[in-house]
């Protein structure tokens, strides 16, 4: 068949000549190659907990519930994130904002309970796409490991951003 790429090389199997059969030159060459790695090549290891690799810009990690510029929670408990979630990882219970809580919650309705099951979550980012209030982003770190399943259900204590002036 005609070669289209012009890169085809016809290999013929020749019997090994004396030096090739003697192994030793090849072994010495090999030893040289490994020694080059031993002496000059730097280790590619990243010692994980102390050294961390930078995430790419569109990395999706742990969720955080955002606050607005006055430090009020943006989430209005509309439930669109829970609805969009393909893994059914998000649940919430909504509550009405009482007078005097305007500095805590941006909208008149807010999430009293907001839970994400990190074992169910597949970090697809559909919740942040669905959110009309720009309240949820997957901009956190890797979800840490734990011993019990119940500890992977993250409530508002872990998800909500730290208040502004604290």
């Amino acid at each position, binding site marked *: 068949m005609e070669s289209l790429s012009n890169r085809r090389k016809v290999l013929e199997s020749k019997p090994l000549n004396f030096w090739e059969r003697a192994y030793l030159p090849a*072994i010495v060459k*090999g*030893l040289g*190659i*490994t*020694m080059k*790695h*031993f002496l000059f*090549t*730097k*280790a*590619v*290891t990243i*010692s994980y907990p102390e050294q961390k690799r930078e995430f790419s810009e569109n990395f999706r990690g742990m969720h955080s519930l955002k606050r607005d510029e006055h430090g009020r929670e943006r989430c209005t408990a509309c439930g669109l994130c829970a609805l969009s979630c393909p893994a059914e990882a998000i649940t919430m219970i909504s509550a009405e904002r009482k007078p005097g809580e305007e500095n805590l919650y941006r909208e008149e309705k807010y999430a009293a309970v907001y839970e994400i099951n990190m074992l169910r979550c597949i970090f697809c980012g559909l919740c942040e796409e669905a959110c009309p209030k720009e309240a949820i982003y997957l901009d956190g770190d890797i979800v840490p490991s734990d011993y019990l399943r119940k500890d992977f259900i993250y409530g508002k204590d872990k998800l909500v951003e730290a208040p502004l002036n604290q």
Partner: protein
Amino acid sequence: MGTTDIIVKFILIVIIFLISLVVAMYSTYAERKIAAFFQDRLGPSRAGPFGILQPVADGTKMFLKEEIIPANSSKFLFIVGPSLAIMTACIGSAVIPWGQTLVIGSYHLDLQVTDINVGVLYLFGVVSLGVYGVMIGGWASNNKYSLLGAIRAASQNISYEIAMGLSIIALLMTTGTLSLKEIAAQQHGWHWNVVYQPLGFLIFIICAFAETNRSPFDLPECETELVGGYHTEYSSMKLGFYLFAEYINMFISSAVMSTLYFGGYNFPFMHSLGLSDNWVTILGVVALFAKIFFFIFFFMWVRWTIPRFRYDQLMDLGWKTLIPLAIANIVITGIVLTLIK
């Protein structure tokens, strides 16, 4: 031999025993670290600074593991196997001259446990015994893989022992003695045997790799074919003994190679430095250990360079290449010796 001599020898034996254990212990660490460097990794780095406590952690782990003796194994031989392996590995160090004589006051301390006049033969015998531990352990496990590993170990040792013996014969023709002390003493300064016996040394080092079951001749414990080889059924410290015996063997054969071919405790210009005899002796011990560590490093260097031989290639190399070469070496040595005389 007086009481002091016996006590001194006893202390010397204990020291050498401890040194071989410590060297073997840190060879495991060095192996992992060196392997890592060859493969552009870091190696163990968590236990202590740079991971230097890793061997301690490994040893503790080995001791704490569950001891399993297979129900259908031959229990006595199953225990004898690793014991024999580590014992034969340790007793080889008895005849190696670690240095010249230290003079302390009026006492002459010989840095060698015993200078028997058949030292080379003794070493050779001990090395041959080493395979029994592997063989008995693999056979007693009552496991097909173990048995195959044991058979491989045995056949490999038998094949390579011949070439090793023949390469030593050529060496003995030039040295004219079987005593390791005299062989070491003859290689004063730069007169190392490797200069006179390069081919013999090459054969010897290849056979040493085979005898210690090190890569590329590690077929007895070939993971890809035999699970773990002869130590498939072993667990806990009995497995530890097998692995440890390998490293002690490596240490001892490095010492033997240094002594037989690389001048032992001799180093160049040893008497033109103007130091007292005791200092020269101490520096000689350091030189010997430097050579030993180089050879241990070389063992590991080769391990991470050359892939394992196939069984038939191993036999080909042993019987069709090394033995004829060793015999040719003897003939050439004989002719040259006759011509010189």
